[in-house]
């Protein structure tokens, strides 16, 4: 075989290469001429740098000697390693832990001032020390606050006094020192920090600006065109999502629930000067632009300052309303069910709720053969069961009949609905059927409160939150007195419904007793009690996000103040009317249906207990599921007592929730137990424990039972009430 008569084949990475020692192949050199058949791979360096003198020298030295020679290394600027004072300034002795070090994500946020005192400050502080009480750390904290409180312009002395908690004289001294030092300071702040991106894009090329956010910038039209001509790699911004461990599935679900962050607002509020105004887009957009922007004015546009959750591409169907087959949660609350609109008031047949972008509630309608009939459903009839326990119990005999088949008979449908075999979703109207005198007076009260104008809930938030059943994570940070009243009032309603349901369930569970349950005369009281439960639930999402030590502190005090609240409540002695145009999502009817269909375990669980309790326990469940959304009405912080109680209750709520979870809410609270508890100061825990103790002494059934009984008892200590509530929640 001629050695050189052929060209070398391409190197095949998957073909075995025999390994020889050169000494075994004495004739190898004869083949050398074609050894270069494999093209040289690039080094991966920049061309100009590759030819640099010292590198080339080092490479050739390596090739000649097989390894680097000391004098052939690439020279670098020298470093020193003999800082004499090192030992003295760095604290000594850090013992290596036996285990690998794991840091807690939040352990790093120890609140220490970023500002570090310098020698000049030290002189000042020492001087000041003679007159006043100040230490370096305190001084640093003050400067830190002043610096962080200042923007381009330093804060004024007046503002400084608001920022600082020290006494005025000290503030003035430090302020004057600070303002002078700041004036002389060359940087924008006494706390040196890397220059940040400017909103207007002028900092694009500033070499001192670093760590720009990888936000999708608003692109100018010009650039869009340029993109068309010369395709450029597009990097989609991946919006940040809360760590899944910290967020419940329900929180994650709304695709585009904006999360506001004050800092973001500051930083990413891109001025519109760069963007084409909407009108222009509407009037005369070129074809190319249309191509780029097929949705035109309806295209989804990111709002500056908003962070959007990433779409769950891998688990597209992870919605509470999607059936498990499609990867959803299949939450029964979102099944297709009979739905009635408030305005215009009519039944639209079967529909399913889900939450769309921005928290809008969408109704997916489904066709059924009964549609024509359903449309004529008498709404008044539908709502009647709430008022007429008597008639309801009359119906109970029918409820046990099979309801699987669609009855063409309108009355049968009605009966089915009424007996909660068909769920019926009805946004609640402001006009209340069961208005009594109390309520009227309360409405007046409510209005007057409204007029005196503590922060009125914005319509937007209001509507969102009423709909936010699935997005309980939306933060409700604040509560106002009137909102609280609203809750109570809603809850009172719900309680009524529950009582109706109780009867219903009694029938369902085949209890022979057909007790005519009197609607409690003392409604406000029980309403209040249930209210707390409801609010607890409301807060679950909220707490799951942010139960910081501050709110835990609140919680601790809440236990104390709940008594006050009781007083407040009694004094007012009101049940308020619903004042919002709002949709109050889950009506009692709906809930009842839900319960009977979805909570067999609960029923089974309660069956051995006394009839009364058996009926009560489910009622709590239903309330949980139903009131959840109604209660996610946020409450603003005008009334601190209210807030505190809410949070306080919530803490206790999470404690016992290890009990079998019937409802989807329970897992949520369970998940948050560790976190919640860890954040709670010991005092709160103690109180919670006390509340809990009480609970444990009482068998669940009887303590639940005590709720209706309490309706007839006059006064009970507030703490007792809380204990009751805790138990009630256990069921969920």
């Amino acid at each position, binding site marked *: 075989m001629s050695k050189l008569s052929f060209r070398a084949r391409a190197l095949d990475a998957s073909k075995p290469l025999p390994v020889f020692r050169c000494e075994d192949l004495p004739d190898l050199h004869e083949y050398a001429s074609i050894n270069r058949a494999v093209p040289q791979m690039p080094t991966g360096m920049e061309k100009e740098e590759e030819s640099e003198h010292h590198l080339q020298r080092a490479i050739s030295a390596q090739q000649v000697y097989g390894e680097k020679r000391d004098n052939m290394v*690439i020279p670098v600027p020298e470093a020193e390693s003999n800082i004499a004072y090192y030992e003295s300034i760095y604290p000594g002795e850090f013992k290596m832990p036996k285990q690998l070090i794991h840091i807690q994500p939040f352990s790093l946020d120890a609140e220490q001032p970023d500002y570090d005192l310098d020698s000049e400050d030290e002189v000042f502080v020492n001087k000041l020390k003679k007159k006043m009480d100040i230490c370096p750390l305190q001084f640093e904290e003050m400067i830190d606050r002043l610096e962080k409180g200042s923007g381009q312009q330093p804060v004024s002395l007046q503002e400084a006094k608001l920022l600082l908690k020290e006494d005025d004289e000290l503030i003035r001294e430090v302020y004057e020192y600070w303002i002078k030092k700041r004036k002389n300071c060359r940087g924008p702040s006494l706390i040196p920090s890397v220059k940040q991106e400017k909103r207007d894009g002028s900092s694009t090329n500033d070499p001192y600006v670093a760590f720009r956010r990888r936000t999708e910038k608003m692109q100018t039209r010009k650039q869009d065109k340029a993109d068309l001509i010369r395709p450029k790699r597009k990097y989609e911004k991946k919006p940040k999502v809360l760590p899944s461990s910290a967020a419940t599935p329900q929180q994650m679900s709304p695709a585009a629930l904006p999360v506001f962050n004050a800092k973001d607002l500051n930083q990413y509020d891109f001025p519109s000067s760069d963007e084409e105004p909407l009108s222009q887009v509407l009037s005369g957009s070129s074809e190319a632009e249309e191509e780029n922007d097929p949705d035109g004015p309806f295209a989804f546009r990111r709002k500056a300052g908003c962070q959007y959750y990433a779409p769950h591409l891998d688990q597209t169907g992870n919605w509470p309303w999607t059936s498990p087959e499609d990867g959803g949660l299949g939450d029964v609350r979102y099944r297709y069910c009979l739905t009635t609109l408030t305005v215009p008031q009519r039944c639209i047949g079967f529909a399913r709720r889900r939450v769309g972008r921005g928290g809008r509630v969408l109704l997916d309608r489904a066709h059924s053969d009964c549609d024509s009939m359903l449309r004529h459903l008498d709404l008044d009839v539908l709502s009647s069961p709430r008022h007429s326990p008597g008639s309801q119990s009359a119906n109970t005999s029918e409820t046990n009949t099979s309801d699987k088949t669609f009855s063409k008979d309108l009355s049968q449908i009605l009966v089915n609905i009424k007996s909660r075999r068909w769920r019926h979703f009805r946004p609640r109207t402001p006009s209340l059927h069961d208005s009594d005198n109390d309520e009227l007076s309360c409405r007046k009260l409510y209005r007057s409160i409204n007029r005196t104008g503590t922060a009125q809930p914005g319509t937007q938030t209001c509507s969102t939150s009423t709909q936010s059943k699935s997005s309980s994570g939306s933060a409700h940070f604040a509560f106002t007195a009137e909102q609280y009243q609203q809750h109570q009032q809603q809850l009172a309603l719900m309680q009524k419904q529950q009582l109706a349901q109780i009867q219903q369930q009694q029938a369902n569970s085949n209890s022979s007793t057909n007790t005519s349950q009197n609607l409690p005369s003392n409604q406000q009281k029980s309403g209040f009690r249930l209210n707390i439960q409801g609010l607890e639930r409301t807060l679950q999402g909220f707490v799951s996000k942010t139960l910081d030590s501050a709110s835990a502190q609140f919680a601790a005090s809440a236990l104390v103040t709940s008594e006050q609240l009781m007083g407040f409540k009694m004094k007012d002695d009101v049940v308020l009317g619903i004042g919002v145009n709002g949709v109050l999502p889950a009506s009692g009817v709906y809930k009842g249906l839900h319960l009977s269909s979805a909570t067999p375990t609960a029923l089974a669980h309660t069956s051995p207990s006394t009839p009364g309790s058996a009926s009560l326990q489910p009622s709590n469940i239903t309330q949980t599921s139903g009131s959840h959304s109604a209660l996610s009405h946020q409450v603003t912080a005008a009334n601190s007592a209210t807030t505190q109680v809410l949070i306080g209750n919530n803490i206790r709520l999470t404690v016992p929730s290890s009990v079998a979870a019937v409802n989807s809410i329970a897992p949520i609270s369970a998940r948050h137990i560790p976190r919640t508890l860890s954040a709670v100061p010991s005092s709160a825990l103690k109180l919670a424990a006390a509340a809990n103790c009480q609970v444990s002494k009482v068998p669940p059934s009887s303590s639940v039972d005590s709720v209706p009984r309490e309706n007839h008892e006059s006064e009970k200590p507030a703490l007792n009430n809380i204990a009751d509530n805790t138990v009630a929640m256990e069921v969920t």
Partner: protein
Amino acid sequence: MGEGEIIEGCRLPVLRRNQDNEDEWPLAEILSVKDISGRKLFYVHYIDFNKRLDEWVTHERLDLKKIQFPKKEAKTPTKNGLPGSRPGSPEREVPASAQASGKTLPIPVQITLRFNLPKEREAIPGGEPDQPLSSSSCLQPNHRSTKRKVEVVSPATPVPSETAPASVFPQNGSARRAVAAQPGRKRKSNCLGTDEDSQDSSDGIPSAPRMTGSLVSDRSHDDIVTRMKNIECIELGRHRLKPWYFSPYPQELTTLPVLYLCEFCLKYGRSLKCLQRHLTKCDLRHPPGNEIYRKGTISFFEIDGRKNKSYSQNLCLLAKCFLDHKTLYYDTDPFLFYVMTEYDCKGFHIVGYFSKEKESTEDYNVACILTLPPYQRRGYGKLLIEFSYELSKVEGKTGTPEKPLSDLGLLSYRSYWSQTILEILMGLKSESGERPQITINEISEITSIKKEDVISTLQYLNLINYYKGQYILTLSEDIVDGHERAMLKRLLRIDSKCLHFTPKDWSKRGKW
């Protein structure tokens, strides 16, 4: 010839002491001139040397007899005249061909004026004390450029100016004005066609750099500011480091003779006093991440660039001092940082680190990698590289470092690749008298070294030969001996048993 005539762009031999302590007069280019209390200093770049050796020199070290002035004609498009090495300054007007020397008198550099106009942000010269530093507002095109060489004088370095906060960044002194226009345009106008990068927006609209990766892929964003070191000295633990390259530490700190860093959290401070105060408040004794490897005194900590921004940023700022191509343009969110530490009784001291994209579209398993200078040439770099491949092995992927490599990076990687591959080849046992054989893919799978890097290493070592109709690998005696000697010296190794690492699928998480 007076030193006043020495302007940016001039080339001349500059005295330099080499490693062997011998005096040399390599050709250098003046990149900037500053005046400190009446004494002029010149920032020089030695042609064909890496710019980490750039430095401020006094006029005594300049060989003025052989000075070459920048030429006016340089403005005309020319593709030749570019030396093999990277141009000294990005906006150098002169191709600096030899014949240009001495012929032309220093010409008021109009071309610089052109650069001045669009580059508003840099127009903060000493003459305008009322211009706030942070201002990026548009300055009027001004008279200054034409006379710049005479008025390059900026206020003396360390003296804080009460009135003119903007005027006291002498490092940038006169050079600040010479700063180029928007990157895309600048290259064009200079017609340094060889550097033109298609990625750069060609229509003159300043474009943001690509959003992936950690390295500058094109130098078009280079300007005179980033071309020059801006930090004189960094104190980190018991070390004092001399930065090699520009790093965007807060501008007001660039005038300090020493920048003090906390060696554990890497926070920067103005003075030793500040550092001392900081240390009373900082209780970190190790990088603020999870320790995923420990053997002996060597540990690795994993830090999420999204979760621990402040540390990640501080680390990047420090690393930028030693990594020319590193970009800090974007945030650290998509990166993980693996910090290698050495333990002693004071804590876990940072030795080096590498960063890694959580998701790489290009098989990168390392973005930036650095051994801090005090620890260099002691085997730590190879240890870092080895660790990066250990992670890839756990991930079941092959990987390669992000490009471009630096000179030191290339040498380190080549050395690691060579040793790793030779280790495998020499360990091959012949089965039943057959010649041992191996495929490139197998080498790649065993080592997690990307196939291309395996091939390039085999080529570099000259192991691939075509013999009697097939490719073979041949091990020469030199190679074998050299390898054995090298492995004797390589005492620091990664022990995969000590690695406690579970890779996360970042694409599934939908977040960084």
